[in-house]
C-alpha cells in the first residue's frame, strides 16, 4: 500500500519544492502566484468550516439525487410509458447548464443551504438515472428466460436479478456524480451565499487574496476526491463479484 503511493508522493513533493524555489527566486508577487508555504498559512478555521459546509451541501444533494434517480429508474424500467413520457424532460434538465439555473434557485430558495443542495441534486440526478436504467436492462435475455422457467414474478425478477445486476452500473454513475455534486454546491454558493468554499473563492478573488483562493481551490479538490474515494470503498465492498463474472 505504502509502496504504491511512494512514487506519486515523491513527485508531488518535488513539484512543490520547485514551485517554492521558483517563487522565492523570481520574486513573483503573491497576488499572482503565492508560494506553497503562503498557501499553507491560509489553512485555518474559516477554511475548514467552509469546506465542511460545502461538503455537507454536496453530500446531502448527492444522496437525495441518487436515491431519487434510483427510484425513478426502477419506475422507468417497470412502466415503459413513464420512461417515454419523462425521459425528454430529464434530458432537458441535463442539458440546461447548472450555472444558468443557479440564480433562479437562489431567488426561489434563498441564500441558505437549500439552493446549493438543489443545485447538487440537479447536476447529480441525470448520470445516476441514465446508468441505472441501463443497468436494470443489462441482464442477458437468457437470465430473464431462466427466471421465466422458474416461474418468477416481475417483482422477483427485479429483486433477485435486475437490481443486483445493475449495481456495477449504479456505482460507476455514483462515482461520476460524486464529483459533480461538489461543482453543484460551489456554483450555488457563487450566486448567493454567506458561507462555503464557493463564497470563500468569490470573496478572496475579489480582494486579490490569491493565497486564500489557492487554499480554497485545494479544499474543493479535496472534497471531491474524498467523496469519490468513499464511494469507491463502498463499491469495492458491495460488488465483490465484479470482474469475476461468469460470462
Amino acid at each position, binding site marked *: 500500500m505504502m509502496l504504491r503511493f511512494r512514487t506519486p508522493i515523491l513527485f508531488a513533493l518535488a513539484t512543490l519544492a520547485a514551485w517554492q524555489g521558483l517563487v522565492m527566486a523570481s520574486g513573483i508577487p503573491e497576488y499572482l502566484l503565492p508560494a506553497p508555504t503562503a498557501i499553507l498559512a491560509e489553512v485555518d478555521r474559516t477554511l475548514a468550516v467552509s469546506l465542511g459546509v460545502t461538503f455537507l451541501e454536496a453530500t446531502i444533494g448527492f444522496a437525495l439525487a441518487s436515491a431519487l434517480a434510483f427510484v425513478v429508474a426502477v419506475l422507468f424500467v417497470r412502466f415503459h410509458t413513464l420512461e417515454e413520457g419523462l425521459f425528454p424532460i430529464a434530458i432537458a434538465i441535463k442539458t440546461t447548464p447548472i450555472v444558468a439555473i443557479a440564480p433562479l434557485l437562489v431567488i426561489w430558495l434563498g441564500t441558505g443551504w437549500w439552493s446549493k443542495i438543489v443545485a447538487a441534486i440537479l447536476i447529480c440526478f441525470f448520470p445516476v438515472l441514465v446508468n441505472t436504467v441501463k443497468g436494470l436492462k443489462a441482464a442477458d435475455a437468457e437470465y430473464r428466460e431462466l427466471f421465466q422457467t422458474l*416461474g418468477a414474478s416481475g417483482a422477483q425478477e427485479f429483486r*433477485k436479478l435486475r437490481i443486483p445486476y445493475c449495481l456495477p452500473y449504479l456505482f460507476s454513475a455514483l462515482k461520476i456524480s460524486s464529483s459533480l455534486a461538489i461543482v453543484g454546491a460551489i456554483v450555488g454558493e457563487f450566486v448567493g451565499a454567506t458561507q462555503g468554499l464557493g463564497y470563500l473563492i468569490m470573496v478572496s478573488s475579489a480582494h486579490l487574496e490569491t493565497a486564500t483562493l489557492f487554499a480554497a481551490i485545494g479544499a474543493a479538490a479535496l472534497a471531491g476526491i474524498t467523496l469519490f474515494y468513499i464511494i469507491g470503498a463502498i463499491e469495492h465492498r458491495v460488488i465483490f463479484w465484479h470482474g469475476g463474472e461468469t460470462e
Partner: protein
Amino acid sequence: MSVVALAARGEMQSGPLVVIEDLEIRFDKVVAIEKMNLTVQRGEFVSLLGPSGCGKSTLLKAIAGLIRPAGGRLARGDANLRIGFMFQKPLLLPWRTTLDNILLPVEIKLGGSVADRTDHAKARHILDMVGLSNFVDAYPHQLSGGMQQRTALARALMSDPDILLLDEPFGALDELTRETLNEELIGIWQNSATRLHTIMMVTHSIVEAVTMSDRVIVLTDRPARFVEDVRVRSPRPRSPEDAETLSAMKLIRRILRGGR
C-alpha cells in the same frame, strides 16, 4: 396452443409426456419450425440433433413455455408438469454462493419466505450428487467452467423436474469435462431416487446423441422439420465403439448428408 392434461400424475408411469402435432413457430415472418410432429414418452432420453441454427433450441424453449407457437398443438402429459431447463451458459448469479444459487428456484417458488432446513438439506444432497459438496460456499467466479455447469444442473434438479430440458448443456466445455458430465447426467437420470425420468437434450454432437439417448430426433436446417427418429437400442453403459452405437452413428451421418 392448447395445453391438455392427458392423465393425472401417478396414474401413469409410462405414456406420452410431451405431444407435439403440426407445430409451427415463427419469429415475425421467419418460419423457425414447421410441421413438427413428435411424442416424447415418460422415461425416455431424447436427443434433438441438427445443424446449428436449425431451431432445436427454439423447440426446446417452446416446450418450456418460453416461446408461443404460431400454430399446431403442444400438449403436456400433465398440466402441472414440472420442467427443469438448463442453458448452454451456466447463468449463475455472480453475487450468490453455490448453495444460494441452487436455492434460487425454491426462493422463487416460496415467494416472500426463505428456504428452510429441509430445502437446505435437499440442496446439499443434490450438490453431493453432482460432486460439489466441497464448493457449497464458493462464488461462481471461483469455480471452473465445468463446476459452474454442475451448479446449473444442480439448480435445475432443485425444482424436482419431471422432465429436464437441456440446451447444449455442456457445449461450452472442453471434451474431457463434457464426457464426464455426460456420464454423470446419465447416472442421475438412471437413479430411481429422483423423480426425474425424462430428458430432452439439444446437441450437435452425433457421438453424444447416440451414446446417451434412447431416441435421436434428426432435424433439418431452417425451418426445422422432423426428418428421422433413430432409436438406439444398445445396452448401457455404452461406448462409442459398440457395434450398434457405431451403426446408429453411421445412419445419422447419412441422414444428415441428405440421403435417407
